[in-house]
């Protein structure tokens, strides 16, 4: 089923600069696998070496956090929106660009 994955600003550089990517998937895990299959550089930003979703990245199906659903086994249906929401820290002043 076609689901939309919304790519957050900090990760767009690793996803062909796209705001969202449509993938075919039946679960969140499949959707993320399809996404990182398309954009290999995204993988290390989303998953740790042991393959678990990084703790500063949350994934939502529509407005629900998958940690409180069935995690990567959470089913998705056509028209669902998956959001990747990493922590961002900016606010007071930007550190000098590297």
């Amino acid at each position: 089923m076609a689901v939309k994955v919304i790519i957050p600003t900090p990760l767009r550089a690793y996803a062909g600069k796209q705001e969202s990517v449509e993938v075919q998937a039946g679960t969140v895990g499949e959707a993320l696998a399809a996404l990182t299959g398309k954009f290999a550089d995204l993988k290390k930003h989303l998953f740790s070496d042991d393959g678990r979703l990084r703790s500063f990245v949350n994934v939502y199906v529509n407005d629900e956090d998958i940690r409180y659903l069935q995690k990567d086994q959470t089913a998705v249906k056509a028209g669902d929106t998956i959001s990747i929401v990493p922590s961002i820290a900016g606010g007071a002043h930007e550190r000098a660009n590297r």
Partner: protein
Amino acid sequence: MATKIGTAAPSPGDEKPTASLSKQEVMRYSRHLIMPEVGMEGQLRIKQAKVLCIGTGGLGAPLGLYLAAAGVGRIGLVDFDVVDTTNLQRQVLFGTSDVGRPKTEAAAERLRNLNPEIQIETFDTHLTSANALELFKDYDIIVDGTDNFPTRYLVNDACVITGKPNVYGSIFRFEGQITVFGYPGGPCYRCLYPEPPPPGLVPSCAEGGVLGVLPGIVGTIQAAETLKLIIGKGAPLIGRLLLFDALAMKFRELKLRKNPECPVCGEHPTQTKLIDYAEFCGIRGEEGPGTVTNVPEITPKELKTRLDRGDDIYVLDVREPHEYQICNINGHLIPLGELSQRVHELDSSREIVAHCKSGKRSAEAVEFLRGAGFRKVSSLKGGILAWSDQVDPSVPKY
């Protein structure tokens, strides 16, 4: 001494405001007083409220201005920084003549001018594990407008420990996140993000920057949430994460849940004191996050000398195209994020000097290239900023 005019109507079961408004204050706040959602009682609550703003930068600027204008009785400002020219693009509390002044001093002056009826307290210091609890103690609401992970976790934990709500806002380029953490029964920052990104995986600063108006919008939402908490009206952003995208001009809302296993606010907290947040975030000593060390470096002067005498050196610029447009030294542009796919464009038999803005991204690039089998590769020490300082001052610094 001004005549006391307004007094609060008693509100059952709630702490009732005991202050009163002077004639001048009634005039000043009349647009609040005539709306029933605020009214005299709400305005007196605002007058008695004590709000601590962590950071007086992009988020703290609109926040401070609106809280002061609204008549928040005591506003604390914590910031260690001084105003610099690059701040003025978004930190609307400051003017050009403030460059070089401590931010808290310049901010306090501006806010006192805006509203002399209120108290402004300044803390020209870093917020640390040693001073946070003491600072928070005297305030009702803490507003987090900082710019780094260690301080965000510190603010969160100190809020949970002291039982104060944490009005949270953070921004990146044109995207913002806003919520209220630490409200009794509600989630905290650690429920959302148990751990910070490890250094090096923080989304590249090359992608940094911020649309000047974005902190204006996000900080103003934080001010609105703060005022709502004070007057006890409306639906606060507790358990809701508001995402804002200024480019798409879209707001989205996600559900936030309190994690029963949260180490700080969960049912069985494993951390009940403040910790070393630099260590928690994997940042030690003087090294910034993601610093790659031990790669071969070349100084700007050395590079200049060698280029001038005609050595065959391939200059690789690993910044972003928009940075290249600001200034460049005729390097071959491959942004760090594209290096892995475009490495075939490089000739490993030639000597390569990689550079970026200040030397961190190029160090990562050198490390990557060495891993890919390149041997004659080094990083320009201090980046194009150092080149501007030491070789060619006509190159603008940004």
